[in-house]
């Protein structure tokens, strides 16, 4: 049987808050830089928030030819295209900007039709101001034929939109917004047709303009609501100074995480947002444990100065703080190393969150208490009661 190793049992007591000025400068600098980076460089939003298309393709033979692929897909008239190697040298993630339903898209639809249904097909935009699209077939088609034909370009229609009887042209009425959504489908088909012989399409993802905008709005609300809820909880359980200290620490963690996303140009997708929210919750986790000890010590050592009291509490909880950050750190490290490319930006974000969350509990949240002038006589009487009852 082996003996436990006291990993973080330090003989020396650290004067954490003696460094609070340096920490204040460092934290402020990191956060200002992060905010500036988010504003001027911008987050590398994934298609979840921006709308657009992502295709994961793998070369049928050998490694992917990024330059050739970029030239091919870029020449399809689908707007801005970005490519990146994804996990392996044979696999590429192709990202295409969201489609706007322009005349170019209708021309693209014609190419898809001609390739998939025959050279005689024509697709033209309808009257200006509408999203209507006019299909012309080389031979007359009945209702079933039309339904079949338009689904080749990913168009879903209702019976009402199709011509009656057997005709050679069909004018499908759509709003401009509906056409923009449909053009996402057209772009996917164009890429499939252009690279399908050399590459296998492993997965596609398409987020239309509408959903992208909505997710962006609700994402911002989710972050704000989470932070508000956590602060309210802390404020409920502790004195207001603790609530403010925790809020500043949380903002610090969230902002600097966003900064890391900009700095490393990590894909900011829904999973990345999940990381940010988790970091907001986790940031408080450490802080609350330290605060719990601070409050306990405030009752015990009524005469001790605030800085000494905070230093004492921090040293007492240090080993716990480092241990739990350590266990989460190794778990997240496993995700970074083995979790695969889809989870990569989530995992890297989380890893940073764990590190910065530990730092901020000590140097932001507790230093905040110093600046907020917390004193023992400010403890609410109610908070003292359980202690009295125990004694």
């Amino acid at each position, binding site marked *: *049987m*082996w*003996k*436990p*190793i006291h990993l973080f049992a330090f003989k020396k007591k650290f004067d954490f808050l003696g460094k609070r000025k340096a920490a204040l400068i460092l934290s402020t600098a990191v956060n200002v830089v992060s905010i500036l980076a988010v504003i001027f460089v911008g987050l590398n939003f994934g298609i979840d928030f921006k709308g657009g298309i992502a295709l994961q393709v793998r070369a049928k033979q050998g490694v992917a030819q990024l330059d050739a692929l970029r030239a091919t897909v870029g020449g399809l008239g689908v707007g801005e295209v970005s490519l990146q190697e994804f996990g392996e040298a044979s696999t590429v993630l192709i990202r295409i900007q969201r489609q706007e339903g322009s005349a170019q898209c209708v021309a693209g639809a014609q190419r898809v039709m001609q390739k998939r249904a025959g050279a005689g097909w024509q697709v033209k935009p309808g009257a200006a101001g509408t999203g209507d699209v006019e299909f012309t077939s080389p031979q007359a088609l009945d*209702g079933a034929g039309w339904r079949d034909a*338009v*689904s*080749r370009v*990913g168009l*879903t*229609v*209702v*019976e*009402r939109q199709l011509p009656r009887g057997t005709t050679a042209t069909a004018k499908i009425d759509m*709003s401009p917004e*509906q056409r923009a959504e*449909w053009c*996402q*489908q057209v772009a996917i088909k164009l890429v499939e047709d252009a690279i399908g012989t050399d590459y296998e399409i492993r*997965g*596609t*993802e398409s987020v*239309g303009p*509408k*959903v992208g905008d909505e997710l962006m709005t609700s994402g911002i609300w*989710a972050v704000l*609501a*989470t932070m508000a*809820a*956590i602060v309210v*909880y802390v404020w409920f359980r502790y004195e207001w100074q603790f609530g403010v200290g925790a809020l500043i620490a949380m903002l610090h963690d969230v902002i600097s995480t966003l900064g890391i996303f900009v700095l490393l140009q990590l894909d900011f997708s829904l*999973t990345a947002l*999940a990381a940010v*929210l*988790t970091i907001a*919750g*986790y940031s408080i*986790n*450490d802080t*609350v*444990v330290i605060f*719990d000890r601070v409050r306990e010590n405030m009752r015990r050592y009524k005469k001790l100065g605030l800085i000494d009291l905070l230093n004492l509490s921090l040293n007492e909880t240090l*080993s*716990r703080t480092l*241990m*739990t950050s350590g*266990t*989460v750190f*190794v*778990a*997240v490290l*496993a*995700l970074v190393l*083995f*979790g*695969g490319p889809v*989870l990569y930006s*989530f*995992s890297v974000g989380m890893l940073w969150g764990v590190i910065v969350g530990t730092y901020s509990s000590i140097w932001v949240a507790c230093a905040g208490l110093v600046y907020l002038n917390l004193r023992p006589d400010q403890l609410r009487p109610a908070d003292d009661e359980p202690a009295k009852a125990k004694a």
Partner: protein
Amino acid sequence: MLNLPRWQTIVIIAITVLSGLFALPNLLPASVLNSLPQWYAQNRIGLGLDLRGGAHFLLEADLRSVLTERLTNLSDSVRAELRKQQVTYKDINVEPGRALIVTLRDEAQRAKAIEAIRTVDPSLAVSGSGDTIRLAYSDQELFRRKKEVIDQSIEILRRRVDETGTLEPTITRQGDERILLQVPGIKDTTDLKRKINQTAKLTFHLVNEDVAAAGANIPATLPPTTFLVPTREGMQELRRTNPKAWEDIQTANPRMSPEQICRRYQPQCLPVLKRVVVGGEDLDDSKATFDQQGNRPIISFTFNSAGGRAFCAATRANIGKRLAIQLDGEIISAPVVQGAICGGSGIITGTFTTQQTQEQALLLRSGALPATLTIIQESTVGADLGADAIRAGTVAALVGTALVAIVMFAAYGPVFGGFANLAMLVNLLMVFAGMSILGASLTLPGMAGLVLTVGMAVDSNVLIYERVREEKALGRSAFSSIATGYERAMSAIIDANLTTLIAAVLLFGFGSGPIRGFATTLSLGLLTSMFSSTIFTRMLLAVWVRWRRPTELVI
């Protein structure tokens, strides 16, 4: 604190064992599962589409157009009714998606006009003043109509996407005007879109009463104008009594004609004339309602003008005969024509229950999709991509768990570290059990949530053990150190877990798809860890302390 009453120990062990039992089907290999009773073995966590492979569509219904169309139809009826009541009007306009505006010539006729409109549709809310009357659907009515359109679309999608009953699609409402369609295991979405574009074939035929009068269910010979079609009840009966035959019919390729089915399997069938009286594309609406006395459930339906004329002529000439309504090769109903049905709308009466009329009305409407469905979000994942994700997630989870276990063993020794690690495994079992019970699916972010849970769940044990160390350093006895450690660490444990739980729950509320999977595993893991890391380990330690009676704690 450490003297647990016997009943508590029993409850703790029972919860642990039950969790294990619920989690077990997820961990056993298929060969073992097959030998277990099905009710138990099928109790497994489903895989999300990102792991399983498949297609996911978010469709948006264009409800505005539907409402505008309904209002336009309504304006025709209002116009006719006003003319009948000799109310003169300047104009009737449709405000797209919202309301109908009638402008009268004579303000004095306002009351009379409103009364006339009420007879057309009593559910309309009337407002406006002077010579204008604004007719709008009330919020309630609007909500009901939207819901109706979405429900109908879902029903139709189900019929179209899963003709053969083998695809297991999940089709659910999303908010007010959206439908989420998930089909596991398919990669070619062109075929799926073709199916969405398909129309169910709804046709009205006259029953050949001469043949039917002969009595036999399946006559040997038929006039060339007549063919046999199985009734819906007949097919359902067949499905109950001869599931094998039903399965054969569903999977037959090419599909069997109704007459072939009648001849081969002999379900209840009706001889009907081949000539189509009216097609489903001419049916505007049908709904379940009650007769004028207000007590008998009936089905009412409305044709467009072309359908109305054809229906009028056919019913006038065939009073007393039955009119069969055929949907996708099955007769869903064959009411007797009581009289000429002209004017575009009619009713079907019979000894129906309310539920039956609702079902029939829905079937009648299932010919055409009521609203345009636009794909606003789509994702397809190939099966091998899903397999890669499973592999990556599993490796990360195993390595993460192993690393955390090593750290805990190293830091707190074989006994305390071992108990914490045992608690971690129990926690994982409880998360699996919880997901099985909730019917949640595991996604790739969900696996990340599991890994994170593993790292965070031991936090409670760290808090307790560190406190025990402190108490021990203060010179307390082994027993007392453990007891006080648990007691003092509790408030920090609850605070620490609840704050992260708040974030996870809000994420669940906000997120969709795979992200919900992350929120699910994380919140479940945090909740169950409060049991496994505190209550469960406390029991283990209580038993251990009583057994070994340590004089000094090795922690």
